[in-house]
């Protein structure tokens, strides 16, 4: 398809959520997947090298238009946002524990942190950074939690596997201890 690049550009532009390759395939059934993947890459590069303010980033497994960090102050002025809200220390710690041990129960998270995490989990649920995925086959059938797509998007990750591995963590800890 000749104008595939423009079509993909249009699709990403109007998407409310990061547009995945799967979604593109659904729309463009007549185009082979490799063509889509290649064209997307070309499109991303075009924006990257154009020198403009807009680029296409990959997040939560999909593609989305974004601004560059240097324009953040002006965007915030326009939107009248003083500062973006950040997660609290408690919430971040709970979220990290969920991300690394999922699917996981409240009791397990609380044990890992040695701190009752009921409230933090509740806040994270409300913010849709984690979700309930079922119950554990254990006494009391406690709820099991997992991180969400929004979690990935929030931290600019494509998949949970993008988080540092055990080895990388060990390296990180050594650096910190050094």
């Amino acid at each position, binding site marked *: 398809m000749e104008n595939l690049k423009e079509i993909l550009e249009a699709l990403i*532009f109007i*998407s*409310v*959520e*990061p547009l995945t390759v799967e979604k593109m395939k659904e729309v463009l059934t007549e185009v082979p997947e490799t063509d889509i993947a290649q064209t997307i890459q070309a499109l991303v590069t075009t924006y990257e090298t154009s020198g403009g303010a807009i680029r296409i*980033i990959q*997040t939560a497994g999909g593609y*989305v*238009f*974004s*601004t*560059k*960090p240097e*324009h*953040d102050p002006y*965007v915030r002025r326009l939107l009248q946002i003083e500062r*973006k809200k*950040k*997660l609290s*220390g*408690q919430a*971040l*710690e709970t*979220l*990290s*524990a969920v*991300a*690394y041990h999922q699917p996981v129960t409240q009791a397990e998270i609380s*044990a*890992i*942190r*040695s*701190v*009752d995490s009921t409230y933090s989990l509740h806040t994270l649920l409300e913010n849709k950074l984690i979700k309930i995925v079922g119950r554990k086959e254990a006494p009391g059938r406690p709820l099991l939690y997992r991180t969400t797509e929004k979690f990935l*998007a*929030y*931290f*600019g*990750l494509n998949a949970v596997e993008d*988080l*540092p591995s*055990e080895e990388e*963590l060990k390296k*990180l*800890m050594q650096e*910190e*201890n050094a």
Partner: protein
Amino acid sequence: MLEDIQPTPADDGYLVKLQIFEGPLDLLLFLIKKKKIDIHDIPIAVITREYLDYLGRKERINLDREAEFLLMAALLIYIKSQILLPREQPIEPDVDPRKELVDRLVDYQKIKAVCSVLREKEDEMSQIWKRTALTAPLPEEDLDLIEVSLFDLAESFFTLMKRKQNENQRVIKGKEVSMAEKMDEIVAVLKERSFLDFLEYLDAQETIEEALIAFFCLLELIKARLVVAIQEQLFHTIKVWLRKDAPTPAKVDD
């Protein structure tokens, strides 16, 4: 990471705002780092003293978590007592009473490392704006719908029953209603009117038994995800809706 700032005496006249310790493990890790202790060979006596010191001064400690800090203190003292107890044979390394604590600390240390990675990413992401950011805050209205929990339902039901009790009913045994019949009835009503008012519907039942059955049917339908109970706003009436994605009913048995 936390800097090691020597605690200033309380009467020093000025206060430095410091990062507080979110939990007991947080504090322990800090002390271990401060004393340059090998995490796998913790001198329990030293660390316990330091730990209790912090606890006693209630310094940089999240006081909402005091109980959890105390629990850790108890654990430390317990471990020390285990080590002190005279034994016939020396403690084998794999039954080191400290082992469980060390495992927990190592695990927690990992989580802390993940935290700092995620915090960096959060900072990065907070500086870029996606097109999706503009559309995301819109569907607020949806969020105001509260899916009602079992307890809310039960509570309204019991309030209703109490009200009914005072009506001094005389029960005449007559027709018996089965769960299956009632459930079909509810689904039929929902298909016709798209929603029904939870309390109104139960109130309209002829007898308490029938209301009770209707209540159980509703619970059963909610559980089977055929219907959904929603409260538009706090203190508003609870409405029951047929789920749009509901599978065909009538397969629900009692």
